[in-house]
């Protein structure tokens, strides 16, 4: 290789990398504002865009743009508002819902959206071979669980009935006050049968019907482009029944996994809105650009599971001592710093009007006493115990802080152990842990979403704790109650039992913290972080942007 080649190579390289001419110009956000194109930080790459297969938030944000269920939610109040169904009736016993579909509901290829579309889609969603993790969202419907678990082969016996192409009747197993909320979950969205049948077996994974160019939806937006790990682009659908109200021309979803990258993209004007914000940046934004920072209460909590099969944790007094010696005010103020609320109950306050009374308080003195009663005065003789968490900076910080609090208040040594996500899951699932970090996000706004997981041997319990009284309250008392207050009373009693036994230590209630450009309008805060995209628009208000 001689010098001439080298020089040529250098030039080619510089040209290829395009060193020349960049910076300045219009940012993506500014262009977007002008053209009504929303640039949305979407966390991870969507696993799929099949509403009956996927399980995550990134998929959720795309699917609610592409598809629409019978009912929508008002983003301000989370109350049901008409979607594909223009109206509906509920029988007096709360078991039968009749939905009247609007005449102008259309698929993006122009086909009308009919009641049998829903019936077929739901049958598909429940078919075992598809492996739909969210099949349980249907289980309020009569016989849906039997069909989904393969005990019942005939979908005709499931409580879904097509009265005519514009009328769908659903019969429930037991009164379910939150049923209408579920209809807005993507697992209950309709899919376009001819498309699914064209691109493979509709009852198996691995179909390509969700690709751009194949996808047929009924939502306010249609799928334009889906580039792996790069972007998903949806654009305004002209066939949508409410297209006149849709103001955005397009939404670009970016799968930005790294929160720091996302923050930098936001700062450089590449994103209108982020999925989250690095915790350490919250204080900075709060001080320097509070108008960009959004801290919103969220339907989720952060807690530690205690494995009640471990000898030293089998004693509820020890478990309560551990819970009572954590200074949650300090933690939310100095460690998490994201506006979280200290948690002294398991269910977030005001979950659709439900608030449980605090089950305990920060009381180091009382904690020491309980620990002494349990046989470990001043922490003496307390066996070495390990706190397991999946690798993450936030979990680490919290664990280190709490480890120190337990040391200080109870004089017990807790060692920390972080593991990669799947190993952590495996260990927690199999009970190979002593104390393990966890979090929970409600599927719907109802205490049931937080409390039914603690029934004996529940799939998400994983603590080994169980109490027949609790099971009765959650599984029988609450479903049987016809009145909201009576139902909530069952839940309050159940939660009191839970907090007394303390198989889990609630730490704080989550917030959704993210960054948003000032021009993004029509996104009211709500507990679910739920956007109604047809109301969203971009307007760089009366204040002219600087520079």
């Amino acid at each position, binding site marked *: 290789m001689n010098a001439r080649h080298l020089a040529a190579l250098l030039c080619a390289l510089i040209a290829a990398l395009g060193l020349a001419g960049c910076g300045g110009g219009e940012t993506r956000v500014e262009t977007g504002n002008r053209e009504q194109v929303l640039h949305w930080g979407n966390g991870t790459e969507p696993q799929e865009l099949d509403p009956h297969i996927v399980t995550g938030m990134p998929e959720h944000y795309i699917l609610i743009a592409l598809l629409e269920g019978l009912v929508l939610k008002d983003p301000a109040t989370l109350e049901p508002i008409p979607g594909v169904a223009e109206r509906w009736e509920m029988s007096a016993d709360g078991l039968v819902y009749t939905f009247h579909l609007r005449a102008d509901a259309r698929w993006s290829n122009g086909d009308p959206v009919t009641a049998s579309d829903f019936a077929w889609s739901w049958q598909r969603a429940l078919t075992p071979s598809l*492996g739909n993790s969210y099949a349980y969202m249907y289980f309020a419907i009569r016989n849906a669980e039997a069909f989904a678990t393969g005990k019942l082969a005939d979908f005709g016996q499931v409580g879904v009935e097509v009265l005519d192409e514009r009328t769908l009747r659903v019969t429930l197993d037991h009164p379910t006050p939150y049923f209408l909320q579920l209809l807005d979950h993507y697992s209950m969205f309709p899919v376009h049968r001819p498309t699914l049948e064209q691109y493979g077996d509709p009852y198996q994974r691995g179909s390509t019907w969700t690709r751009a160019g194949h996808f047929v939806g009924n939502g306010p937006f249609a799928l334009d482009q889906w580039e792996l790990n790069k972007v998903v682009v949806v654009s305004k659908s002209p066939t949508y029944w409410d297209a006149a109200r849709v103001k955005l021309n397009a939404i670009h979803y970016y799968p930005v996994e790294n929160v720091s990258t996302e923050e930098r993209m936001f700062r450089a004007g590449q994103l209108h809105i982020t999925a989250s914000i690095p915790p350490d940046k919250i204080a900075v934004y709060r001080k320097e650009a509070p108008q960009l920072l959004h801290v919103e209460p969220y339907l989720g909590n952060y807690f530690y599971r205690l494995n009640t099969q471990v000898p030293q944790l089998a004693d509820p007094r020890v478990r309560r001592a551990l819970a009572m010696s954590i200074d949650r005010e300090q933690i939310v103020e100095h460690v998490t710093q994201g506006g979280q609320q200290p948690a002294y109950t398991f269910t977030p306050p005001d979950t659709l009007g439900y608030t449980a009374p605090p089950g305990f308080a920060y009381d180091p003195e009382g904690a020491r006493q309980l620990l002494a009663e349990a046989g470990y005065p001043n922490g003496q003789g307390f066996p070495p115990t390990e706190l397991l968490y999946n690798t993450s900076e936030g979990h680490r910080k919290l664990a280190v802080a709490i480890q120190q609090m337990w040391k200080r208040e109870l004089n017990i040594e807790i060692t920390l152990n972080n593991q990669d996500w799947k190993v952590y899951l495996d260990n927690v699932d199999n009970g190979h842990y002593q104390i393990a970090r966890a979090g929970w996000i409600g599927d719907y706004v109802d205490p049931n979403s937080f409390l039914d997981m603690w029934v004996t041997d529940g799939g998400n319990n994983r603590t080994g704790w169980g109490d027949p009284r609790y099971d009765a309250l959650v599984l029988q008392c609450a479903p049987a109650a016809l009145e909201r207050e009576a139902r909530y009373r069952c839940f309050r009693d159940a939660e009191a039992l839970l907090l007394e036994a303390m198989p889990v230590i609630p730490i704080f209630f989550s917030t959704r913290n993210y960054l948003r450009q000032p021009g993004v309008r029509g996104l009211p805060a709500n507990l679910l972080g739920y956007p109604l995209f047809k109301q969203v628009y971009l307007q760089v208000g009366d204040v002219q942007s600087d520079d």
Partner: protein
Amino acid sequence: MLRFILHRLLQAIPVLLVVVTATFFLIRLAPGGPFSADKAVAPEVLHALEARYRLDQPLSAQYLSYLGDLLRGDFGPSFRYPGRSVDEMIFTGLPATAELGLYALLISLLLGTAAGVIAALRPNSAQDYVPMSAAMIGICLPSFLLGPLLILVFGIWLDWLPVSGWGNVPGDKLLPALTLAAGYTAYVARLSRGGMLEVLAQDYIRTARAKGLPEWLVVCKHGLRGGLIPVVAFAGPAFAGLLSGSFVVETIFQIPGLGRFYVQAAFNRDYTMIMGTTIFFAVLIVAFNLLADIAAVWLNPRLRQQYRKPAA
């Protein structure tokens, strides 16, 4: 030469077979399956998924059917991204990673060689220490640190270059390529310095000077070729290693590349994807080792007749 290449290609077959077999069984030993999730998955759902992906069969049967698929060129469907095949994902991610790797390699070769050559011209002087120390910084500044640092300076404070993306706007490839190149630059600089020191002491360099050639021509034309031989030996395996090495850079700069799949597949226990990327990586290693050997022969005419053995 042809025989040599054929020989090495033949050797590659058992290598790949061992890699496939070992990886196949190792990943199944790792705790946590592809479908485990935070929210408990219902047993019947799990059964349906396992049946779908043949995970309910005995391991040996799974292995044999996987080998069968492999022979037909089918890497199978991804478990994590059920709508996509592993083949498709590898070939979607490959161009960006290959391009990134190529740029990084070229940058590290250029900068590293430049530093090494400049340093070798006056060993143990400031002209040696300054460029070598600069190159060495690449090791102290791992990409998870250098990337954000470069973005901060050039993307945000100076606003010269985009902070993320790949091929969207001009200039967005420069920072990632530089970031990835940094670590390799130090190695290239050291290797080329050593190589050049040795070559510049050779008699034929004096011959070139005696011909009255200007110094740059002496160094670039007569010195560089021999001095770069150790660099070439390093560059082959290093380029193959860029696939897994580019994970961090791809994540930081939001590049739709293969490196992310390679690492995420392991985190997700996406068995078929792990297998696919690992096999791909193994092929790359074999190929680039071979290429490095061929390049060494190409660079060094003397080696061309070295393949001589005693006739037993």
